[in-house]
């Protein structure tokens, strides 16, 4: 990892306590999946894209769009084809009615899924695996430890696969050539060799861990996180906005009637307040980032 990248990921929301950033994403993704409502979906998608563009870096952001936009189109089109409810029939497709309601619902739910995917990419940037394990290590220590071990094994196994594959190629068993059947057989052989190597290695690791006193005391984590005043303030803010979100859902403001006919969402003062609250939640990472960037510029 280059220094520039390391600097980039460790800013804004990433600098808060893992519990704060984790709760933030739970709140914002729950809201995304909860509200089947054009305005909320629009807010969520807009904020997600803004946040992803700011914290994920340009390349990753374009990758997200490359994956997300086709998915958006697919879901938007799939819904009216699978779902024939709704009063306004646009046309018939092999005797099945395609309705306007299903079409609009498809666009809204596709936007919802797109937003959820984009939020998850932001989650991946902010809540790194060591933070995830830090949080879950308290509740499920053994499971968290296995996850942590698995994650550290994967790059090692990938490197070993390369070594094995090179050795296999040098004796004429290249998995990249031949028929599909041969390739699968070669691939399976490489994995087989990998298993023998990895299992021996793993048990030696286990014994080494025991020798160093694994399981004697409570485990410490690689990163040290302190829950400070700043975290408490941010946590309170996230929880208040989450409460607003739950209120909006329970009072029926977060959903819209699609079937049999669409009823345009009414917008009273409280609705506007709810949109504002959800926008505030969605825009939080971008706002923190901008605030920090401005501070940095001033100090320079």
């Amino acid at each position: 990892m280059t220094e520039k990248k390391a600097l980039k990921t460790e800013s804004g929301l990433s600098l808060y306590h893992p519990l704060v950033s984790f709760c933030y994403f739970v709140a914002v993704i729950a809201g995304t999946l909860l509200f089947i409502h054009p305005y909320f979906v629009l807010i969520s998608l807009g904020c997600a894209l803004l946040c992803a563009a700011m914290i994920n870096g340009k390349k990753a952001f374009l990758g997200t769009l490359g994956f997300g936009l086709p998915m958006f189109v697919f879901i938007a089109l799939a819904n009216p084809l699978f779902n024939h409810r709704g009063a306004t029939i646009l046309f018939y497709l092999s005797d099945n009615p395609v309705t306007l309601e299903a079409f609009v619902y498809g666009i809204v739910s596709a936007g919802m899924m797109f937003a959820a995917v984009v939020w998850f990419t932001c989650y991946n940037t902010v809540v790194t695996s060591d933070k995830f394990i830090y949080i879950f290590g308290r509740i499920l220590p053994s499971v968290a430890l296995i996850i942590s071990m698995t994650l550290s094994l994967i790059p090692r196994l990938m490197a070993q696969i390369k070594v094995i594959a090179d050795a296999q190629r040098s004796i004429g068993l290249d998995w990249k050539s031949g028929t599909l059947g041969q390739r699968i057989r070669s691939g399976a052989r490489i994995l087989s060799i990998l298993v023998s190597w990895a299992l021996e290695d793993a048990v030696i690791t286990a014994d080494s861990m025991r020798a160093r006193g694994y399981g004697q005391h409570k485990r410490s984590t690689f990163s040290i996180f302190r829950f400070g005043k700043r975290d408490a303030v941010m946590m309170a803010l996230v929880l208040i906005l989450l409460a607003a979100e739950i209120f909006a859902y329970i009072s029926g403001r977060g959903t819209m009637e699609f079937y049999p006919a669409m009823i345009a969402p009414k917008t009273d003062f409280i609705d506007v307040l709810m949109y504002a609250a959800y926008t505030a939640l969605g825009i939080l990472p971008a706002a923190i980032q901008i605030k920090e960037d401005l501070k940095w510029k001033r100090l320079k």
Partner: protein
Amino acid sequence: MATGAKNYGLISMVMVILALIPFLMLYEMKKPQAREWIPLAVMAAIAAVGRAAFAFVPHFKPTSAIIIITAMVFGPEAGFLTGAISALASNLFFGQGPWTPWQMFAWGLIGFLAGLLSKRGLLKKKWQLIVFGAACGFIYGWILNIWSGAGFVYGLSWQSYISLCITSLLPDAVHGTATVIFLLLLSDSWGAKLRRVKQKFGILAS
């Protein structure tokens, strides 16, 4: 309660996360030693790497077969854990998303079932292994279809669920075939390797 479109997306996601917890707690309560769980971490990592290595053939992945083999040697709880963790870990390559808990549950369940069946001596014969391996492609697909249905199509109904299952018939069949092929290719040799490690180091005696 809210009127308008009911949201099955979040409800189903909360349910599947809740469904994961008892299995994980079951393992947690055993207070496993390092020697006992490290082979599981290895197998989960290999299952994840295998999924990435075979990404060049769509839906053709050795992951289910590797989970089944591990479960056959180490038992149902270990099978669930291996499956769930390999799903979580392999999504580092494929991207985490709302589908992650579903994949964790689906592969966990495959591991759990394989462990149970093998305990009863029901996966000893080749034909039993073939039937179970093929079925796994569909078990996995049908569990993930619940998510697709809940997430995309309003009012998860039997008709829309069945039509989703019909659409996914081909990918599920490819996955099932892959599982059978890898089980036939690997189960004997890997089973022997795992049993050897288990015996040599005295792991998970239960």
